[in-house]
């Protein structure tokens, strides 16, 4: 997009017919390649790589669909999981539940942390440095390590057993850096004139933050939230040891009967014992559809942001 725009302005300035500078006929290009075999090689490599990446995706998607779609059946969407119907509906609801709870916990903390880092912290503050380092560390920790930590802290030390809350807190810690980072970027993108304008009209700092800066940054924050949802939905290693393998809806937040398996964990468990491999693939199809929808929303938001900017 910007590419084309730039070219337009360029051609506008120099009264050359549009795109004249970059116009290369196929024959000229072939002659160029004949002169420079390296260029030809590089071009072929680039094309091969692109075909490989997109081909891989198509390959995997078709593989899932072929194995999964024939096994999708109405009874897999019963309200209650039994070993007979192997329903994934409770797992889907659990996924939504867990996503909502995790976001409720992590998003305010993440946004406030970003607000502190961008709006309040003074330059060169030691604490800010520490916060940045720890946030980066947190974002690099593999999910299995999060899972082990959650298991040690919530399930063993606090004796919560396998519980949805243990999973939620573990996930919240996992997505926190993501939310902080995207919110920070969104806040930095808010022009300083907004702040100055707000202060100039006599608003306090807090009022400026909540009434002027945050509303402007909402699309950016949303894109971070969507990314987090994607991460929560796809997560398995961190949840197996924390929220466990309860196939039905949790009855409590912690303690007995509070275990809740998200769709990904549900699929992992189904695939483990070899009794329900077909149903595992069917859940993979649903999971893929979920991921696709999440990506779609994220794309829409991104487009919205760039349109605003443009």
């Amino acid at each position, binding site marked *: 997009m910007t590419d084309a725009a730039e070219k337009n302005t360029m051609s506008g300035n120099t009264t050359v017919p549009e795109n004249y500078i970059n116009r290369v006929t196929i024959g000229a290009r072939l002659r160029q390649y004949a002169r420079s075999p390296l260029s030809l090689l590089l071009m072929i490599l680039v094309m091969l790589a692109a*075909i490989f990446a997109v081909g891989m995706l198509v390959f995997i998607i078709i593989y899932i669909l072929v194995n999964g779609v024939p096994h999708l059946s109405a009874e897999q969407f019963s309200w209650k999981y039994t*070993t007979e119907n192997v329903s994934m509906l409770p797992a889907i609801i659990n996924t939504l539940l867990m996503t909502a709870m995790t976001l409720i916990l992590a998003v305010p903390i993440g946004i406030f942390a970003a607000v502190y880092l961008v709006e309040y912290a003074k330059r060169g503050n030691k604490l800010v440095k520490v916060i940045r380092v720890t946030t980066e560390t947190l974002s690099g920790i593999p999910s299995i390590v999060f899972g082990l930590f959650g298991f040690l802290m919530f399930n063993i030390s606090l004796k919560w057993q*396998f519980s949805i809350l243990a999973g939620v807190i573990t996930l919240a810690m996992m997505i926190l850096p993501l939310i902080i980072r995207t919110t920070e970027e969104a806040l930095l993108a808010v022009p300083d004139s907004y702040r100055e304008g707000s202060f100039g009209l006599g608003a306090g700092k807090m009022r400026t933050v909540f009434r002027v800066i945050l509303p402007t940054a909402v699309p950016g924050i949303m894109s971070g939230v969507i990314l987090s949802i994607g991460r929560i939905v796809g997560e398995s290693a961190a949840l197996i040891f924390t929220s466990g*393998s309860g196939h039905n809806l949790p009855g409590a937040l912690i303690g*007995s*009967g509070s275990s809740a398996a998200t769709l990904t964990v549900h699929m992992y468990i189904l695939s483990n*014992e070899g009794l329900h491999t077909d149903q595992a693939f069917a859940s993979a199809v649903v999971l893929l559809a979920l991921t696709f929808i999440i990506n779609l929303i994220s794309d829409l938001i991104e487009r919205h942001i760039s349109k605003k900017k443009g």
Partner: protein
Amino acid sequence: MKITRTLSLGTAALLAIAALAGCSNDNGSSGSSSPSSSSSSDSSTPAANNSSAADSSSSADENSSTPATKLDTEITVVSREDESGTRGAFVELMGIEQKNEAGEKEDMTRGDAEIINSTNGVMMSVAGNVDAIGYISLGSLNDTVKAVDVNGVEVSVDNIKSGEYMVARPFMICYQQAKLDANAAATDFVKYIESVEGQAIISDNGYIAIDTTDNYTASGVSGAISLNGSTSVGPVMEKLAEAYKALNPDVSIDVQQTGSGAGITAATEGTCDIGMSSRELKQEEIDAGLTPLKIADDGIAVIVNLENPIEDISSDEIMKIYTGEINNWSELA
């Protein structure tokens, strides 16, 4: 501009992708039961999805002209992970657990054996590899792999009951007696598992019931029970829990499948009411305050690929395969 060029390249790329996708379609449909080398031969038939046993074996016949009675390839040994209940029982029964120089019993499974931490993983690996041998719980056996006879005895519920098929292990539950007594629902559930009705569910699912004459009558208790442990016991325990809940609707049962060790730990630490284990409890675990109770027996099926012509194997040969003395299928008697 370069648009024409890129567009033409783009279409070429899309065509290539479509071709790739076409291949993947064939691979995906037959890949789970036959190696990809043979999948090209039956690419014209839009084969139904996986587990088409006859299909894959016929394509193998096309590939190998001589109907060999024995493979002449290196054996791929597939094993469960260290301390899995299934592996523990298997190595003990097969004599793979041998005394080392220090005189302590040690699992001598060869170091280069493939390790997989799920029954399904073992089955998928064996189903996709002609040279593989593995072992799984009898209750999970399906037609993607072939169970071989051990010492001439077929693996079946009857043969395990009669003791002729030697590779079997117990399914156990364990609990702290005081904690169980305090939970009326859990006590009642244990009574149900041990009853004729409960054991009927166990044998319906392909496991070997224990002899009992006690009948169970619903007592109308209410409460919550949490179970935790073996992934082998878990599936049948879920069936038991469902049947029990049908009789006692006021009871909620939570079955967590984490592993024998984790279940025993949870029962010891009191984070669950009942632990499930697919191996006998160790003395130190009983000393820690747990009461073990056997609820069923389970056979361990020794499995090979469907295309492997072998039908019978001796326990001595299994031992030698797993300890690395035998490396090739042709070395078998």
